[in-house]
């Protein structure tokens, strides 16, 4: 009898563990193994590092977006913030490395301002975040266009581009080590601590779950809302710096990134009306989406079918999550 009980408890422990593993991580590893089979260079350390470098901007965007999603909102303005970062960065630095320091400071200030505006409109004007951030998306894009006259005016100096582009060579074990991964790890550590380690994170979850109840329990809803939008905006600026570094100046670098960030979070198990999600899930979702695109390119799928695949994955991921929740109650 006791032996049977022990076996049952072991089985329960195993099931408990299995339930805690994020599905997106599993899917990502599966995708990556297939990629490795098709293109063995990805299984080498250098290839893996390159992959992470590519995925870093989306992962950072997702790490910021998760705060807003968990609180029950949407931030549609992050793509245009990325654009303004790259365009503005080129205008401010004007190919002069000595400008990089203060230019980056100004860009973060712009992000802070946009985040504050988003948060204030949602918290004080009670406007739904879909509309508020849609409005900021249009306006920030307009500002980026107005500022640059439609075409970015300068080159980005090398020390600005270092964050996205610089790679340390001859590193032991991993062979190459992109600076972008340092940035990614730093952002992930901060986000993990902010969302899951601090009291602040618990408040964000509480608001997403039931804002009225959280308010009655003493949470300062307005303040928390503003802070989450600021976090998302600052993450967007960081992702913009990486993308500008990796790719150089461009006018439409941010197009569609907000929906990709939301998709990444959703694939990673973040619940869309708020209250549930993990940072690991968001980052895993970003890695999964990046792996999906790489896989489809390697398979030679035409661009339009890649969109179809993204749509299918999205629906399956969310349907699966909803089914799982119904099962576990």
């Amino acid at each position, binding site marked *: 009898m006791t032996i049977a009980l022990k076996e049952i408890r072991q089985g329960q422990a195993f099931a408990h563990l299995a339930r805690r593993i994020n599905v997106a991580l599993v899917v990502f590893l599966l995708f990556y193994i297939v990629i490795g089979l098709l*293109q063995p*260079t990805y299984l080498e350390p250098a*290839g893996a590092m*390159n992959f992470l470098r*590519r995925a870093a*901007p989306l992962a950072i965007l997702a790490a910021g977006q998760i705060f807003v999603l968990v609180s029950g909102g949407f931030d549609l303005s992050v793509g245009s913030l990325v654009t303004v970062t790259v365009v503005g960065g*080129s205008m401010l630095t004007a190919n002069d490395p000595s400008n990089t320091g203060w230019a980056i400071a100004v860009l973060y200030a712009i992000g802070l301002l946009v985040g504050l505006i988003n948060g204030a409109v949602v918290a004080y004007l009670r406007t739904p975040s879909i509309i508020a951030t849609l409005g900021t998306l249009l306006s920030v894009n307009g500002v980026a266009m107005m500022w*640059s*006259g*439609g*075409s*970015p*005016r*300068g*080159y980005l100096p090398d020390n600005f581009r270092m964050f996205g*582009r610089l*790679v340390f060579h001859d590193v032991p074990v991993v062979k190459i080590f992109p600076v972008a991964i340092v940035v990614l790890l730093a952002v992930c550590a901060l986000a993990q601590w902010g969302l899951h380690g601090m009291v602040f994170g618990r408040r964000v979850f509480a608001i997403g779950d039931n804002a009225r109840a959280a308010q009655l329990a003493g949470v300062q809803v307005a303040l928390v809302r503003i802070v989450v939008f600021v976090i998302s905006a600052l993450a967007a600026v960081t992702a913009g710096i990486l*993308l500008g570094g*990796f*790719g*150089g*100046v*461009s*006018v*439409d*670098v941010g197009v569609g990134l907000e929906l990709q960030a939301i998709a990444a979070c959703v694939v990673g198990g973040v619940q869309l009306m708020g209250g549930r999600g993990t940072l690991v899930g968001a980052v895993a979702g970003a890695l999964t989406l990046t792996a999906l695109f*790489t896989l489809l*390119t*390697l398979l030679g799928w*035409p*661009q*339009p079918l890649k969109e*179809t695949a993204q749509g*299918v994955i999205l629906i399956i991921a969310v*349907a699966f999550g909803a089914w799982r929740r119904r099962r576990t109650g």
Partner: protein
Amino acid sequence: MRLLKLIAPVVAGAALAGAAPFAASAQNFDDPKEFQAAQDLLKMTPSGPEGKPWEQNLGGREVDTAKYKKAGPYRICFSNAGVDNPWRVVGWTNMQAQVDALKDDIKSFKAADAQGKDDKQISDINAFVQSGDCDALIVSPNTTAALSPAVEAACKKLPVIVFDRGVLTTCPVTFVNPIGGYGWGIQTADFIVSKLPKGGKVLALRILPGVDVLETRWSAANRIFKENGVNVVGAEFTGGDNAKTKQIVEDYINRNGKIDAIWMDAGATAVAALEAFEDSGQPYPIITGEDQEDFLKKWKEKGLTAMAPTYPTYQWRAPVIATVRVLKGEPVIGPTWKLPQPVITQADLDKYVDDKMPPLHYAMCGCKDLPGYPQRWGGK
């Protein structure tokens, strides 16, 4: 039941995808007659004032415009498809500066921006015609077929000048444009064929499918590549995105070991493609980009084997010049006015490279003599 709902879209999708081979295209992008016409135009010598290619023409005949003669100064209206890419931004700046240069003849110049929407542009054109505030209308159509009825209706009330893309009606006084996509494809493919080592691998980078000006470029180049047995290892769509371009090129380098040449249907991501070679530690390829300053700069700095075809932005100057002539009753070239389409070669690179102009400025702008140069175009 649930399973059915999951399967249904997949089945529907498969059905649609199966219809693909039978999809009929309204416009043929692989027309051998157009290809031949472009080759003939490339061989012609332009006639017109020396050093002013936006006033020159390749063949064509003169159209009598006496019936449009009016007393100046004129009120000109412009229906713009949009300014949603740097090429159009430079062109639009050229046009505005040209209007400034002719300000004695032009009383007012009103522009409507359709933001890339056909539906809006039709309404914009109708509004201009209805307003009665235009002596003449310049149109840069967003798409050829869709704008044709609106242009036809406009022709009945005032002289219309079309440029860049055409329309399916011959009612405009003239249609200004350079040789076009087939010419570009011929110029670039010929260059690559002449420089490519035997058995060399070519990677073609394209922006989007279905864009008429881009499709004709690829169809002409592909035809020449096939005729010469060139090994094209891939033709990928980059969406005009730097990051994606770099990723695609990196993947191809990994898979093929070495890429000898890059063909591009537009130059916006040329530098990104070259950086992919740098980051992979590979030698630079033979490359055809476009006349953007960042590409020219890199070409000069790194001593590349390259050429820059152009779809010259100076074609935005010609319609203004043509319109003023039409309203003065002076003859213009029509019904089609073909502008020369030069390329930038190693020999004339130094004439066009300019460090002080923005990276996405188009060097073949023909704008150095216009008021406001270089600040108006973002230069120093």
